[in-house]
């Protein structure tokens, strides 16, 4: 009996998280909500597709950007490596509100205000991504890299044949985390695209769905993220095992 107490506590805590989702799912089946959403809120799906596009692109870019930088911090020795890495950690700790003004000024300079490029770039450059990749690659044995360097000096071939297959679970995790983060942005859309409402992600306009189809809209909003997680789940769990302090 005593052994079951942790299970009971875990189920109780889980139900606190699951209850709002269950409430939304149950209410979505009343009063023809899905019909109302499909017939009268048809632009919802345009926004949904756009949001999935932003999220997938941000996820892909974050992986492409973080991988070589993470490899640099993990395996290449250069002057001030540790200091630069600690600055990355510090930036990672800053909330978005602390950097939004400098981000706005930067995007204004490159004419990316009111453009989806600002959203995608904001989410693609992430210190957390570099940190995760670095932690993963710290466990890659140096002997393998030394052995490979006897055959080829090309860093790109090294990344392609050794590093990427080794770090694939962590790359899947990173893609998933960036996908989820981009999928639910609201503040960045309002700040970086104040006038271009047509290009907003679905998370920023979900509240505009009429009440008659609102709960159905919320349920459909959950589906892409849930399915992406289920597709990448196995890789993601393997990736979590690599996270260790070394």
């Amino acid at each position, binding site marked *: 009996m005593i052994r079951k107490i942790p299970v009971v506590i875990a189920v109780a805590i889980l139900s606190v998280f699951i209850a709002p989702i269950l409430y939304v799912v149950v209410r979505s089946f009343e009063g023809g909500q899905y019909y109302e959403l499909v017939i009268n809120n*048809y632009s919802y799906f*345009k926004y949904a*597709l756009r949001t999935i596009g932003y999220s997938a692109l941000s996820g892909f870019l974050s992986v492409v950007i973080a991988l070589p930088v993470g490899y640099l911090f993990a395996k290449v020795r250069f002057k001030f490596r540790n200091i630069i890495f600690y600055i990355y950690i510090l930036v990672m700790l800053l909330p978005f509100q602390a950097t939004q003004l400098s981000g706005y000024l930067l995007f204004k300079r490159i004419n990316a205000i009111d453009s989806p490029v600002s959203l995608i770039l904001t989410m693609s450059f992430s210190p957390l991504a570099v940190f995760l990749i670095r932690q993963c690659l710290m466990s890659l044995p140096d002997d393998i890299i030394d052995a490979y360097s006897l055959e080829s000096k090309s860093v790109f071939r090294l990344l392609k044949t050794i590093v990427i297959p080794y770090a694939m679970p962590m790359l899947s995790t990173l893609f998933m985390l960036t996908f989820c983060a981009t999928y639910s942005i609201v503040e960045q859309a309002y700040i970086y695209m*104040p006038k271009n409402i047509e290009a907003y992600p679905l998370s920023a306009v979900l509240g505009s769905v009429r009440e008659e189809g609102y709960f159905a809209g919320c349920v459909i909003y959950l589906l892409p993220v849930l399915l*992406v997680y289920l597709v990448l789940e196995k890789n993601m769990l393997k990736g979590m095992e690599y996270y260790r302090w070394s």
Partner: protein
Amino acid sequence: MKIKGIVKYLWMFLLIVILVFFAIMAVKGREIHEKICPKVKTARVKTIIYGDKSYNCIERNCVRDGKVYEIYKQKSFFNENTRVKAVEVEILEIETKDIPETKDMVAIVSGIDSISRQYFAVVPKEGLTDGETVTISE
């Protein structure tokens, strides 16, 4: 194929189905809406008392003193009481439409609310009273 093998690809298949559905709706949604929903429909002007003020409304889009209010009832899942909630919209543009077959006049307004959400509303023009039927066409 064993069940485990099928489940592995099931989520990928569902994701592709959802993406295809979204794409079809994004392209064809307006067409489907126009085929199914009537182009011309009638609605009754209703006077709703909210607080100590009265508002003239078509469905739930109401107007008073040159401002647009969205008044709708919220049903609670756990009890049967209803609440009326009003959202005030800042009018950006007004287009007055005179429905040719009738003498009804309605105003189509576009505006934003306090958190910059866009609204398009058909509201009664001044002079229309409670119970009058208006014809709305797209």
